[in-house]
């Protein structure tokens, strides 16, 4: 049976954040929400400085604390490894957000009408990207934020789980691009990484990219001592959290 895993090669990652951008465009997430987040660490004093990056998608844990605490079963674990949120069932208690050691959950604090990269009008209703409608720019091409797959039901459970910015007052988080994976595509962040630092595949298949990579290289998983059994593997040395400087914060104050 298929069991998906995500591999991040920290030795390749150069912190360009193309994955963050790809995720936002693909999933149409609200402003200030980063389902894929990249930590940047700086250690040492000039001239001996070491900068490292750590991309952080949802860990899609095999023992997910968020699934356990959900009082309505909106957060659930699929057999193929996905941990997803049913946007139609969530009551917005934010217990999953509290229970997650990785901080990957984002709540729709306000109505997600204006999403960061497709907000064509400003507060006064003026078009900030020039005149005319979106059609003038993209023609008949369906812009990603109108991707019908995001409104479709996925998996054998047939639940509304893909994409972001659905409702006010519900939790959303990284879906590993379920709507792409079910079509046989890779998640947007993986597909868009210019240095192939991100891998996605079937870990139960010994001949898959991820299995081969994990068999060959040394890897670690984030906060493994918390017993969450995350499905995201990192190749390279663990980042030096303490005493290092996180220089930029991607999370905007909303």
């Amino acid at each position, binding site marked *: 049976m298929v069991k998906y895993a995500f591999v991040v090669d920290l030795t390749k990652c150069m912190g360009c954040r193309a994955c963050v951008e790809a995720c936002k465009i693909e999933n149409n997430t609200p402003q200030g929400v980063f389902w894929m987040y990249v930590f940047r660490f700086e250690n040492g004093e000039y001239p001996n400085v070491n900068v490292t990056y750590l991309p952080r998608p949802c860990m899609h844990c095999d023992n997910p604390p968020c699934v356990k605490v959900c009082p309505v079963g909106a957060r659930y674990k699929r057999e193929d490894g996905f941990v997803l949120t049913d946007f139609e069932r969530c009551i917005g208690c934010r217990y999953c957000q509290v*229970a997650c050691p990785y901080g990957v959950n984002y709540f729709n604090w306000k109505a997600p009408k204006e999403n960061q990269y497709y907000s064509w009008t400003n507060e006064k209703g003026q078009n900030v990207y020039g005149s005319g409608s979106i059609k003038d720019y993209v023609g008949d091409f369906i812009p990603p934020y109108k991707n019908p797959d995001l409104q479709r039901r996925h998996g054998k459970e047939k639940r509304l789980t893909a994409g972001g910015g659905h409702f006010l007052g519900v939790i959303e988080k990284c879906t590993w691009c379920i709507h792409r994976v079910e079509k046989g595509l890779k998640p947007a962040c993986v597909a868009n990484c210019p240095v192939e630092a991100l891998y996605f595949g079937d870990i139960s298949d010994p001949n898959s990219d991820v299995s081969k990579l994990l068999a060959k290289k040394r890897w670690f998983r984030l906060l493994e001592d918390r017993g969450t059994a995350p499905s995201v593997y990192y190749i390279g040395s663990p980042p030096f959290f303490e005493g290092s400087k996180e220089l930029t914060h991607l999370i905007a104050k909303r």
Partner: protein
Amino acid sequence: MELSESEKKLLKPIIYTGRRFYIFLAALFALLIWGFYAWYTQLRYGLVITGLRDIGVGPPWGLYVSNFIFFIGMAHGGIAISAAVRIAGLRTYKPITRIAEFLTPISLLMAALSILFDLGRPDRIFHLMIYYLERLGQSPLVWDWTVITIYFTLSVIYIFLLIRKDVAFCVQHFPRWRWLYKLLLVGYIAEEKEKVEKLAWWMALVIPTLLVLLSGGVIAWLLGLMIARPGWYGAFMGPYFVVAAVASALAAVIVVSAIFRRVFKWDEFIRPEIFRGLGNFLAALMFFYLYFMFAEHITMQYPGPQPTPELSVSQAILTGEFAWIFWSMTIIFFVVPTLSLFTQVVLKKFSLTVTTMSAIAILIGLWIKRVLIVVPPLTRSLLPYPIGAYTPTWVEWSLVIATLALATLLYTLVIKVIPAIEVKQD
């Protein structure tokens, strides 16, 4: 049948309605309308108008959840005191049992309301029932509302059974509320008293178990089982919560009884011994609580100075951005009132004013403490996110005040129709 002098005094809240009552009622209604406006604003714009934010920006839970825990704690007061009086036969405290009992269901309702305010989708609240069995095995939040429901049902039945003989007395004297009394007296026979006493005894036996299950159990586990949160995770939460719950409950009973004693001039019914006993017990519990606070922080501090997640939470509270709240709370609302109560014990003196003021201070302090339990661990993460910041907004404050106003209003209305002290005491 004429009312005797002492009965007239006892039934003063029902017989006499002064101008001050209407002013008080109007003030409460004004607060409630303000609360409604705040809730409307929140429903309209979403929780963005609160100070709550995602991990790394602010805490996802704040005043609403703290208020929830506070009201759950206060709910124990009443019924636990009443149960203790019944089981242990503490006849001295008999006059305040009903005053205390009413606190329980009212506080539980306010706790439920606080959770409703906290939900992003209150319109989907019924999902809690639809998916109940599916989630009962795992989610502490489901355990919470299970035990709360049991506790609420049990306390309402308990009170209902015990007020009936007084209601039967009232129905003869106050025709104005006849319809309500008749409703409460469905199937009433004068001989039921003996059976009711027996039933109440058994229920009183169960109530302390529920107290431990609720405050020492599921409410504490709501936070204490979260391995992701330094400062919450651990077995300590249970005893920590149960002591705070009983202390806040006792303080609330002292405050409410003292107010009634003053307002209705019930000096002969609510004797000072009652306050002295409750005050002594409160002081003992608060010493325990202060010791617990110390034990909690030394556990988080000792592994330092190497930074651990627990240490960062402890530092946030003791020396960081929460320090001014923590230290003023500890000194003004915990240490000073506890020592005043203790001094009274040592010097064998008693002042109702000192006891009441101490109880009020401790009640406020325990409310603040709930905020300091809930919020700091949510501003610090295991991964190096920015430190979260929290400033409650006017909407949160308004809704917290509105729950308090609604509780007061419900209490006022209840004692307006049902005798707050048993008229027919044996």
